[in-house]
């Protein structure tokens, strides 16, 4: 009689193992990776049902849905990694409608040869972020591509949420006279990433601001249910977000350079890299637009929340058929804050 245990499977080697094509092949290796890594780490009642979809009851109200793909390089950076970023990014997209995020789905594209130890670190970071935010990952998918056809790991997350009664936040609702607020210092995430790019390593203590903002949004909506617009200034930074909102709402904006919060280290790094912090990415900040009379109350609510401590009123919405975003420079002049052209590239001399 054989001594071999019938269901014995050698555990996945999370110390030295690497992703190979079998992990996406639909066979035992894939089932094992899903079970030992994804199910175990994200563990919740929906995943435990082991179906190809998650079933949940829909609460009353307006549902919102958002999706976001994450391809950040490097995968690990000061203040976070692609894992927690992929959770925060989608939660924030859902939350910018004023919604309470409920559930997440996650899709992974893994590159053949990617170390399983790093994958485990990423998945654990995602699980921790999702737990902290109280938004579970209820369904997911994994694919493997051949070496050279991916960049380690790409993660797409999708989220759903529900908007409270009476809240109607949308990018087309800014009106002349409205005030423009930001929740804190801008450019931290982009500079933290840039500091690690292979050709420009420089020493800094700047950390990415990656964070889930739905708690801050809930506090803001409770204080001022009539907020007109919310948006997180991610790629393209504050400048791009303001231009998007101006175009969507069919108005112009004037902001004051001196009122925009920028960490001195971020300002210094941007200075020597030839970048403008207005165009540098954020992952834990938001822009809010509300009626002038509600601005002081909204600012107070933001500052009372840990993620809005550095909030400031930076300008106002104006009537302008050309939809320009203008800035009063701290120098006394005035200039356009334009859309970002291509990727922000450094100047030569």
């Amino acid at each position, binding site marked *: 009689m054989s001594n071999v245990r019938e269901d014995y499977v050698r555990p996945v080697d999370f110390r030295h193992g690497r992703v190979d094509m079998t992990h996406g092949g639909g066979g035992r290796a894939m089932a094992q990776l899903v079970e030992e890594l994804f199910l175990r780490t994200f563990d919740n009642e929906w995943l435990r049902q082991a179906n190809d979809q998650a079933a949940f009851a829909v609460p009353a109200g307006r549902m919102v849905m958002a999706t976001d793909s994450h391809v950040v390089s490097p995968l690990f950076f000061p203040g976070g990694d692609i894992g927690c970023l992929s959770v925060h990014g989608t939660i924030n997209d859902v939350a910018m409608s004023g919604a309470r995020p409920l559930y997440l789905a996650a899709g992974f594209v893994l590159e053949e040869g990617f170390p399983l130890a790093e994958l485990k670190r990423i998945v654990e970071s995602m699980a921790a972020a999702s737990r902290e935010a109280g938004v579970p990952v209820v369904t997911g998918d994994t694919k493997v591509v051949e070496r050279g056809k991916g960049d380690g790991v790409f993660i797409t997350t999708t989220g759903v949420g529900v908007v409270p009664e009476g809240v109607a936040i949308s990018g087309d609702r800014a009106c002349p*006279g409205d*005030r423009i607020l930001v929740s804190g210092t801008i450019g931290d995430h982009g500079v933290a990433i840039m500091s690690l790019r292979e*050709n*420009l390593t420089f020493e800094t203590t700047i950390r990415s601001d990656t964070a889930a903002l739905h708690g801050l949004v809930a506090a803001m909506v409770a204080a001022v249910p009539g907020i007109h617009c919310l948006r997180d200034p991610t790629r393209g930074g504050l400048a791009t977000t303001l231009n998007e909102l101006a175009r969507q709402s069919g108005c*112009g904006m*004037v902001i*004051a350079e001196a*009122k925009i919060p920028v960490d*001195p280290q971020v*300002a*210094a790094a941007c*200075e020597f890299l030839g970048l403008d912090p207005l165009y540098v990415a954020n992952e834990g900040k938001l822009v809010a637009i509300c009626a*002038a009379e509600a601005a002081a109350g909204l600012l107070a609510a933001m500052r009372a929340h840990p993620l809005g401590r550095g909030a400031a*009123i930076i*300008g*106002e919405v*104006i*009537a*302008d058929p*050309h939809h*320009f975003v*203008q800035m009063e*420079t*701290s*120098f*006394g*002049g*005035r*200039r*356009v804050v*334009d859309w970002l*052209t*291509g990727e922000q*590239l*450094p*100047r*030569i*001399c």
Partner: protein
Amino acid sequence: MKYIDEFRDGDLARGLAAAIAREARAGRSYNLMEFCGGHTHAISRYGLKDLLPPNVNMIHGPGCPVCVLPIGRIDNAIELAARPGLVLCTYADTMRVPASKGLSLLKAKARGADVRMVYSSADAIRIAQENPDRDVVFFAIGFETTTPPTAVAILQARSLGLANFSVFCNHVLTPSAIANILESKEVREIGTVPLDGFIGPAHVSTVIGSQPYEYFAEEYRRPVVIAGFEPLDVMQAILMLVRQLNDGRAEVENEFTRAVVRDGNAKAKALVAEVFELRRSFEWRGLGEVPYSALRIKEAYRAFDAEVRYGIAYRSVPDNKACECGAILRGVKKPADCKVFGTVCTPENPIGSCMVSSEGACAAHYTYGRFKDVPVVVETHT
């Protein structure tokens, strides 16, 4: 930020603006060319024009490294990058300069060429060391500021015995460009382009010093004030030029004393003299062929000269007919005078090189100043 904020103080700027307005005489105009793209950028970004009286006019000069690079040179670089296995390294803005057939280095990269953006010539050396089985070419461009680092790279490559590294040298010289503008018929035939004085280069002058400009001041009777790239530097330099013109002086003055001395940086100049020599002639976008206006690699370092190694043949390619970059680079026209400005030619889809770099006159005006071309009602309460 120390050493930065001091030079961006709004109150001091208003004080300088008041002094300029007070001293600029009614009944005459002051037409000043800022040679460098760095100054153009500062003027646009900080809205300095708003602070100047109407009779002080700023004319944008040709001192933007990527703007003056002719199409033919970019074509050469694209041909190099298309060679199988070759890695072409260059500074960022260069990647977007439009070349022939609707190409640019960025588009060549999307089609499979290995083009890499570097922050310094030392990065190109590192890439060559890390890829011993591949040819690595550094596409070197720029004025005297970027020339010493290229010289260092060539000397390093020689001491490291890096046989796979070479430089496609396109370094150009500031004084010859200024002379060319002063000699141009638009400036000499009085009334076409009034040009009363120059704001001299900042970073270039840290290398070559203030001495090379003395000739212009004396020979052409035009004052030069060397100025830093911060907005207060520019305002101070304008005030100094207004004073010189009022006094009938034509001298070289140095506003940028925190970085520039008369004889420049001796070590950097020695490095450049060791590795480079003058070219008999070089084509500039906007200025055409300018004699003795650029550098090439000396015979002793020909092993690192990409032009020799790959037998690069230069072909002059005319600019797009609708593009006014040439006239804009010479100060003859302003960006808004160009028919394609902001219509066909935008920073997303540049037709001419002035729309590429944020230091280019057209890109700076498009990005920071174009709202002034249209009436906008602005009333703010914050």
